[in-house]
């Protein structure tokens, strides 16, 4: 039973880590806490569900692209001009991105025919870890979650684009001076962050049900886990997502569904009070 709990926890944590990484990535580069990542990703996942009749792969690509375009567009046409005009004002961007999330959630509710969906993937069978049966789709979800982190690190090390987002997060002024189009980098990173939100929401829809409110749940959870991991710190976010996944899983067993989230939030609250800068510390000073 402990093993079962652990495995469930790792799966939940792995999925949660996706929006968390999205938050961390965007925050690390732009300095903005974007509350809309998970709702945009959920919109993308609903798009995928709607297009499933046209084939799994095209549907996934369409969802991915939708999330990217929304994330990119909002950054490029709304947030970048605001940053330029008003600088980085926490309250301002809290309200603005919260407003965006509200709009996107509202659109999801009105645009798609059903408020609750579940995404059916072809059954690939089960895998046995010791004597615990695990759906192979879940294993794939986890593998993708972890490999995305590696892909991101790889991009950062080897491509010019990846280098320019690291440079932008380390020294904005110098990034501008060496010739990086930082506004474009901001938009790109926001698009990628929303793709991470999409993958998270997609797998949520594969493993559980996806509702209009899942976007908000993932938003609040992802966002707070990101803070606990050390906001802007991608590795910290990953670790704290895993810990929280395990907490959710075991709290579910021992305390029951209702107390699950209470336990989770109380622990988050406690960590925030004891270590306000997160488990691994922040890469930006807020």
């Amino acid at each position, binding site marked *: 039973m402990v093993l079962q709990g652990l495995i469930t926890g790792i799966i939940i944590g792995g999925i949660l880590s996706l929006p968390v990484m999205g938050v961390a990535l965007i925050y690390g580069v732009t300095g903005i806490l974007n509350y809309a990542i998970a709702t945009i990703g959920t919109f993308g996942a609903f798009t995928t569900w709607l297009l499933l009749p046209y084939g799994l792969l095209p549907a996934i690509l369409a969802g991915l692209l939708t999330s990217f375009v929304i994330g990119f567009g909002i950054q490029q046409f709304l947030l970048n001009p605001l940053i330029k005009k008003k600088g980085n004002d926490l309250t301002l961007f809290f309200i603005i991105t919260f407003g965006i999330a509200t709009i996107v959630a509202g659109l999801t509710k009105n645009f798609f025919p059903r408020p609750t969906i579940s995404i059916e993937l072809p059954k690939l069978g089960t895998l046995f870890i010791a004597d615990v049966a695990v759906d192979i789709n879940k294993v794939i979800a986890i593998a993708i979650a972890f490999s995305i982190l590696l892909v991101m690190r790889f991009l950062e090390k080897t491509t*010019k684009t990846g*280098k*320019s987002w*690291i*440079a932008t997060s*380390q*020294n904005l*002024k*110098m*990034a*501008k*001076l*060496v*010739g*990086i*189009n*930082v*506004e474009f980098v901001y938009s790109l990173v926001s698009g990628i962050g929303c793709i991470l939100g999409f993958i998270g929401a997609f797998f949520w829809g594969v493993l559980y049900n996806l509702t209009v409110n899942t976007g908000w749940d993932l938003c609040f959870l992802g966002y707070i886990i990101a803070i606990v991991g050390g906001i802007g710190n991608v590795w910290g976010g990953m670790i704290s997502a895993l810990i929280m996944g395990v907490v959710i899983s075991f709290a579910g067993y021992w305390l029951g569904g209702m107390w699950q989230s209470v336990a989770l939030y109380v622990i988050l609250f406690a960590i925030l009070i004891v270590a306000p800068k997160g488990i691994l510390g922040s890469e930006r000073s807020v």
Partner: protein
Amino acid sequence: MPPLLMEAENLTVTYGSYAALKKVNFSVFEGEIVAIVGPNGAGKTTFLETVAGLLKPKEGSLKFRDRNITKLEPFQRRKMGLMLIPQEGNLFPSMPVKENLQLGAFFENKRSTEEILNRVYRIFPKLQDRTRQLAGTLSGGEQRMLAIGMGIAANVKALMIDELSLGLAPKVVGNLLSILRDLRDETGITLILSEQSIKALDVADRVYGLEAGEIRFTEDAQQLDRDLIKSLYLGA
């Protein structure tokens, strides 16, 4: 006379209601080394950051290579061949030396980057020993070397260096200055140096005296009257 490279006309820059630059006129010719001298708070950094595009002027215009660049973003100006090494925060501290230099050479392709990096290493052999060291862990002098190395790696038409000598021993400053003069003689690069100390006058062709946001004088560096400098720092 060599052609005009960069020109600022009636440049006014404000922080809130405070005017840090007041109707500044300034020009640089190709291949020149120009020094901007003036006491602390004169507006040198403000001027260079405006030329680089980090600050937007309230009034006036900037021309570079016969194009009006007043409205261009910093990366666009850099692409045209204009670069600033700021007086502080001029490195990517958590990146190794080599990646800093590569970012300096942002618009070069892979092969020419290698060549350019080798040129920088020839000028600053110390950097070659430390290509993998994180920039933030270098000593003050080495950090300045790396910053200038990034400027050289940029392979630009005009390089601006803010407060080159800040916090460095006089001997190190002398070395850096002669390296920069050799670079100019070799490549024809245009250099704009801002200095609180007057050491830069040793290599400069021309000098602008800046005080309280206004240009007080422009002179040939060789014929510069020492009293003029004195009045700049001590007030008329």
